[in-house]
């Protein structure tokens, strides 16, 4: 995932009306999901879906 992919996803979520308030949007920009993923899942960080993090658990989808 590149920084641009994450920016593009945030832009899409704003356009779809899912992200609205400036503080929530700012937090999404400052805290990219890729930092919290196992190495094998990092390429998918900017796809709007939950991803596996081990132990049968998932990381939230960005729209969550």
């Amino acid at each position: 995932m590149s920084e641009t992919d994450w920016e593009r996803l945030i832009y899409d979520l704003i356009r779809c009306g899912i992200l609205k308030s400036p503080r929530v949007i700012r937090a999404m920009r400052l805290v990219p999901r890729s930092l919290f993923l196992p190495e094998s899942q990092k390429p998918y960080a900017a796809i709007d879906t939950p991803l596996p993090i081990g132990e049968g658990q998932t990381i939230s989808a960005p729209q969550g």
Partner: protein
Amino acid sequence: MNEALELEVGHKVLEVGAGSGWHASTIAEIIAPSDVPKDKWGHVYTIEIIPRLANFARENIARAGYSDRVTVICGDGSLGYPDEAPYDRILVTAAAPKIPEPLKEQLKPGGIMVIPVGEVGFYQTLIRIRKMMDGRIIEEDLGGVAFVPLVGKYGHKIGYR
């Protein structure tokens, strides 16, 4: 979920289900923003029942720079975290069979809780609860979601695998 929670700077937040620590860190950046003086900061307490994930979350949160605003506790989050209660906001990142009573009790009057409620393996309903100043609870249906099941005393009676 962060929009539904109506988070404000200074809030004390309880998260049930730390997972990777990402959600807690995004909340930290809203209730304790890096560009606001530290004495105005709120704090996030996040509980994780799976020890390996609690460590994973702690490491991730430290690497992202939020250890000073997020505390990870390993334990049964369906019981809440009475040590720091009451909370301005509570979010549950796993689907509960019904809303756990301890979480209702640990919400401040005027507080908001967001929790997915429903069966395992199906879509669940995201519920927003507002606790009125007189203690009344008002529930609102925010639509369909799909989360892993909440386990623990007030969770689904299954293992977490």
